[in-house]
């Protein structure tokens, strides 16, 4: 693992046992590297496996096969106890701050909890000082420490969630849909805050989201997931302008833009049907059952991520061509 890679998944599989059927293949052969200081955006729809991928990186789920490496250590087989030594260096921010904060605890107690668990401060005074410092860092007045989560707005609660995640001075923060349940006017505040904290503290982010515009804004690189696999990865500006994978192209074309004139003239690629079951994914390319440009060969060969140009990779036998074809003859 090269020096600039902070965390890495290598051919990771996370299969969940299911009653009365074959296992659910939530993550099914994912390799990715998170480089030190960057934001890697992980995009996908529900059932794509993006959240499970994030949990696996923090070793909050057990991999079925493959390796997880964090800061140069292979942590794949580590016990809970041993994981505690790396846990402090990785943290997570969840979608719903209401659900991730204990309603009976004050804000200060919630933020102090990781400090106590990881024995990061000595004595009540030092703890109070550190909590005040963390609240200030995320733009909250220290008096808010006395309040309970239900007395805060959604944006304030998410700031508390971020303060809590930063308590252990992590290197890597997994952000799982951190703005999805916030009001539009508050989403921008939280994105700005996350970017400022990254600059000031040198943080590395895995930004998991279904919001493609937010992912482009936040990320240095982006990985698009579909049915347990990464189908395309690279620079967001490049991928958004010229997607090479038909799924990415369809996803991007489905995102509505806040411009009525453009909306009227847009040609959408409307996918038919639903995402197949992760219990029994299609043979060959997983997207072929919904791909408007699928060919016979797509059922036989499982495409690997291949270089399109530079850092841009796509897992499609007909990368580029398939998208051009779809655009020429949109379905629907």
């Amino acid at each position, binding site marked *: 693992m090269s020096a600039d890679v902070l965390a890495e998944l290598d051919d990771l599989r996370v299969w969940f046992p299911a009653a009365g059927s074959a296992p659910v293949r939530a993550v099914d052969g994912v390799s990715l590297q998170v480089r030190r200081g960057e934001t890697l955006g992980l995009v996908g*729809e*529900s059932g794509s496996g993006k959240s499970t991928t994030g949990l696996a990186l923090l070793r909050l789920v057990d991999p079925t096969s493959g390796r997880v490496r964090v800061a140069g250590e292979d942590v794949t087989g580590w016990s809970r106890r041993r994981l505690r030594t790396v846990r402090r260096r990785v943290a997570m921010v969840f979608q719903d701050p209401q659900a991730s904060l204990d309603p009976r605890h004050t804000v200060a107690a919630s933020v102090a909890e990781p400090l106590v668990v990881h024995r990061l401060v000595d004595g009540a005074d030092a703890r109070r000082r550190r909590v005040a410092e963390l609240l200030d860092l995320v733009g909250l007045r220290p008096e808010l420490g006395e309040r309970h989560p239900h007395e805060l*707005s*959604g*944006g*304030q609660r998410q700031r508390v969630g971020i303060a809590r995640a930063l308590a252990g001075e992590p290197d890597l923060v997994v952000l799982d849909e951190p703005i999805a349940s916030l*009001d*539009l*006017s*508050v*989403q*921008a*505040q939280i*994105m*700005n805050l996350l*970017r*400022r904290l990254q600059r000031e503290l040198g943080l590395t982010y895995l930004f998991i989201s*279904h919001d*493609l*515009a*937010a992912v*482009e*804004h936040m990320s240095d690189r982006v990985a698009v997931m579909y049915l347990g696999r990464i189908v395309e990865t690279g620079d*967001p*500006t490049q991928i*958004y302008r010229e997607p090479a994978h038909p799924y990415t192209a*369809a*996803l991007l*074309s*489905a*995102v*509505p*833009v*806040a*411009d*009525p*004139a*453009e*909306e009227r003239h847009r040609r*959408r690629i*409307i*996918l038919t049907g*639903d*995402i197949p079951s992760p219990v029994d994914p299609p043979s060959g390319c997983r997207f072929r059952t919904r791909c408007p440009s699928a060919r016979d060969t797509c059922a036989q060969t499982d495409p690997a991520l291949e270089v399109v140009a530079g850092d841009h990779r796509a897992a499609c036998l007909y990368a580029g061509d398939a998208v051009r074809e779809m655009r020429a003859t949109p379905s*629907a």
Partner: protein
Amino acid sequence: MTAEPVLAVEDLTVTLGTRRGPARAVAGVDWSVAPGRTLALVGESGSGKTMSVLAATGLAPRTARVTGRVRLLGEDLTALPPQRRRVLRGRHVGFVFQDPSTSLNPVLTVGRQVTEAAEEHLGLTRRQARDRAVELLELVGIPSAARRVDEYPHQFSGGMRQRVVIAMALACDPALLIADEPTTALDVTTQAQIVELVAGLQERMGTAVVWITHDLGVVAGVADTVAVMYGGRIVEHGPVDDVFAAPGHPYTRALLAARPRPGHRDADLPAIQGSPPSPLDLPAGCAFWPRCPVRGDARCEHELPPLTEVGPAHRVRTFYPSPPTGEDR
């Protein structure tokens, strides 16, 4: 819009009794929607967008005090006895809510549910109802409808369940469809399918649609007219093109600017500070004043700005309407 509106709301006010005192959820709202047209009600949480529609159709919670006038197909709903209002609503208004699973009964087949209302309001027999159910499921694009009509909601995906709910809403051939965040719980590729489905049905059947959403992209795609709500009031109201091209209210402008745009990755987003106000604790003057980037004067703080015309059928509730430059976009 010369056609007689399907639904028209005048000076609608909704006050909710809560443990912490009265909450003014909606205050003096006017809007209407014509056949075949879509009105989008946009706003953040607590803006009153859903409550105004629930109150207009007689579905506000029992603790709510509702005043104002509501005309459905020319009949004044507020003057009708509750029973008659219920019949009128059931016959002419279809509802689609955010989470399809809350609208569906898990122990009834989708076929039974789709036509339950039609059986009552149109007096269909069981046999006729089943045929109608198959027809409706086909209409909303459910494959193998004749077979799936006997299946249960859990056998459908989220997107397909929302199609079932739409079929249910259309069962009585309603004049008005109320869609409250119908795609918010769905994936974006499924959302595109549902938006297209509703647009197609509307064109064919001439249904009026009130589409409630917080997503400005969805608004741009579905709406003819937009009403932007904030703190229980409409702050901007106009044709969709005009509102997006030349937003006149500082709130609308700030909201449009706060979305990330391609090619602006290096800059911070122009965020709106603070949070939307609670209906329990509304400022005396303009509700947006405490967060407003324009930050006018004492008038904004103490006086409610009137709705003023800034273009044809384009009104804004602010003392400081912005000049229509379009420089922000």
